[in-house]
Structure formats: C-alpha cells, structure tokens
C-alpha cells in the first residue's frame, strides 16, 4: 500500500477546498431524510420503516457520484499518468482514495444519522449505532464502485450518467419497492446478484426486525467482499502503460 497515506491526505485536502462537493456530501442527504420525514408526516410508522434503510442507502449514492468524478478527473488531467511513473502502487493509490472517502463517508453517515435519530425522532427496532455502521459500509462500497466505474467514462458528463446506469437498477431491485421474495424468479436472482440488495436487507433487518442473526452477518460479509472486489477490479483498470 505504498503511497496511500499521502494520497489520503491529498484527497481530503482537495475535498476541503471544494465547498460545493462538501455541501453535496453533507447537506443533501440531511435534506433528503428531512424531506422524507415531512412526506410521511400523516402516515405514522412509514418513516420509521423506510427512513432507516434509506439513511443507509443515501451515502452509497452520494459517494458513488463524488468518487467516480474525482477519479475521472485524475485520469483526464494527466495526473494519473504522472502518478503511474512514481513509486506509488496501484493499490496504494486506490487505498488512499478509499480511506479518504471512507472518512468523508463516516462524517456524512454520522451527521445524517444524528439528524434522523435525534432531530427527526427516527425509531428503529435494533441499535441506531448499527445503522450508522451499515451506512458507513455502504458509503465505502459506493466509493469503491465509483472508482471502478470511472474507468468506463471518458468525460465527467458520462460519469454522472453512470449514476442512473449503475445505481438506479440496484435501487429498484434492492427490495425497497418490492420485497425480493415477492419478485418474479428471474428478477429475484438478478436482485441477489447486486450488492445493494444485501445492503438493504441488512438495514431492514436492523431497523424493523432488530434481530442479529447469521443472515445479517452474511449481508455484511457480502458488502465487505464486494468492496474488496471493487478495489481489485479498480486496480486492474489502472494501467501503467497506455497506447
């Protein structure tokens, strides 16, 4: 992981220099969760049921977008080619990025959770802390998938369009709109091939059931596995030599 610590520091510095991205990362998810609370103000119980899962999914989406664009910028401005000539390993670079965005994601997830649980009075069956941890895990997964997806975009415009392509199908199939066991068989299989399904399942288990069983452990294992896989695939898309 040669060069990951300086890279983490550098990416965090860049984030700090960019107030709009900071606002996107911190204010937008808080606003969305508040909007959700307001939307279901006359339907008691609904916010409690879907608020916590969404709380865990917003960071995934936000981090995916921010990370894919930041990494794409590295590719298009030529800094990536420079870095590839230096004693910085590819995993070191991605690890550096991953740590920086994981840190940003932790701040984000903690802030949204604090607002949801303390200000908006969100009530979950399980531990609110576990929801925060799951939100952070999802945000890290979103970042690493964003790093990977950036390899397939040539412009920032394309990178933004990956959001609907990569994220929306996962959101539709994750179980939020229709429970996976009520889906047609092919859709159910497809749903379980996508990482967000496991993220939603874990969040719902903690929020609604409050039971910590092997299925929850399996969900978390899949999330971590997908994160590692995305980093490895992302590293494979970084080429020291290009034509």
């Amino acid at each position, binding site marked *: 992981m040669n*060069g990951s*610590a*300086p*890279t983490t*520091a*550098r990416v965090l*510095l*860049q984030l700090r*220099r*960019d107030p709009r991205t900071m606002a996107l990362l911190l204010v937008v998810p808080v606003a969305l969760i508040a909007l959700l609370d307001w939307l279901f103000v006359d339907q008691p119980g609904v916010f409690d049921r879907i608020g916590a899962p969404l709380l865990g999914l917003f960071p995934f989406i936000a981090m995916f977008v921010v990370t894919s664009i930041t990494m794409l910028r590295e590719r298009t*401005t*030529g*800094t990536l*080619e*420079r*870095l*590839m*000539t*230096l*004693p*910085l390993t590819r995993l070191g670079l991605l690890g550096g990025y991953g740590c920086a965005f994981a840190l940003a994601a932790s701040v984000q997830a903690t802030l949204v959770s604090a607002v949801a649980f303390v200000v908006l009075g969100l009530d979950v069956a399980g531990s609110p802390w576990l929801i925060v941890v799951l939100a952070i895990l999802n945000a890290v997964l979103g970042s690493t998938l964003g790093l990977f997806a950036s390899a397939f975009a040539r412009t920032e415009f394309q990178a933004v369009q990956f959001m609907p392509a990569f994220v929306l199908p996962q959101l539709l199939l994750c179980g939020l709109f229709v429970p996976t066991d009520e889906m047609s068989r092919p859709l159910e299989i497809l749903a379980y091939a996508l990482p967000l399904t496991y993220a939603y399942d874990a969040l719902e288990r903690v929020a609604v059931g409050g039971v910590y069983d092997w299925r929850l452990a399996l969900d978390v294992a899949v999330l971590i596995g997908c994160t590692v896989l995305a980093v490895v695939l992302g590293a494979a898309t970084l080429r*020291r*030599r*290009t*034509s």
Partner: protein
Amino acid sequence: MPGAHAVEVDRLHVVRGGRDALDRITLEVARGTVTGLLGPSGSGKSTLMRAIVGTQVVASGTVTVLGEAAGSAGLRRRVAYTTQSPAVYDDLTVAENVRYFARLVGASQPSATETIELVGLADEAGRVVRRLSGGQRSRVSLATALIGRPELLVLDEPTVGLDPLLRRDLWATFGQLAADGATLLVSSHVMDEAERCDDLVLMRDGRLLARGTPPEILKRTGATRMDDAFLSLVVDA
C-alpha cells in the same frame, strides 16, 4: 563502457492510432547532459518520452534506462517526468502539490521549499494552482518532477508559454542540474532553445532526422540558425 548512457533506445517501434508514431528509432542519451529533443508537433517527441518513462505501450524494440528496462519498478524513484500539459492538482496550492509529490518519492519537506524556490515560485507557494498563469502552472509541474532529485529528468515542453527571461533562467537551471550529474531530456519545438543543449535529437514523422551537438548540426547543414538547419535537413531527407 556499460552505464555510460542514461538512455538506450534500440529499434523502438510504436504504433498509435493505426500509424507508426515511432518508426524503429535507435538512440543513446549520454549521462550528465542536457539533450534537446526537437521537432514539429506530431513528430513523435512525446511518444518517445512516454516510452522512456515507461507509460507507452510499444510494438517492438527495447528501451533501457539507467541500466534497467524502461518503466521497471526500480526506476520510479530515479526517473521523473513532466507531461506537455501541466499534470498537477488545480485545486491545491503550489506548496501542497509539491509536498504531495515529495511524500510519494520520499523527499523531505525542506527540499520541497527549496524546489519551489528553484523554479521561482517562492512568492506563489500559498496560491491555488488554478489561479496561476499557464507558465506558472508548468513550473509547478516542473517542481513536482525535480523534487526527488532524480537521475533522469524527462521534460516534455517545459518552457512553453514562459517569458524569455524565465526561459533563460530555467535553461540555466537545467544546465546546473546536468553539471551536478543529472541527465535531462528536454523537448521543445522552439529551435532557438536548441543552442542551450549539449546534444540534439531532431525528429520528424516518427523518425530521427539528425543528431549531434548544436555546432555539429549547424556545420553539417551550413546554416547559421537552427531553424534553417532544420529546414535544410527536412529538404535533404
């Protein structure tokens, strides 16, 4: 004598976009010299430089740098490279950029400050790169390459857009670095910069047109100015 050359290129063939970007080039660069790589844009200068730093996919031929295959892991601390358009972080300050690259190559923080002074940006150290002029940005890029005190510096058009005074200072710096033992390969499409080099490589259409010291090339072509020398070489070829 082995090791006399910092760079040895042997029948290097590179294909880019379906055409020969480099057509079986053979070339050596002596250690401790400033070698100018000259030619019009599209002549293959940047491709040759990318092959030397190991970021270019090559079709055939070999490139040996400081005794190792170009691009090998052991060279990443010993070779530094700047791209034609400054590859630095626009949203960081000059000092933050240089310090980041310093940490990557394991150079000290005081040497970061020294390097910023060397490229004449001491007064701009705290400014965000986005707000700098084009010439200042290319000097930030240069500083990030100089920071590790590399043995071989590959600089792609480092003086584009700089005022004549600054260009003179930078060429003096290049000369000083070579005198201290570093090898520099510097590309330019400005022929009057050729006279500041110890050795010249003239390129056109992916081929070597001529090489030698500036006086040698002038003598061979009977020209008094490098521009005219280049022209007569093109006509003769």
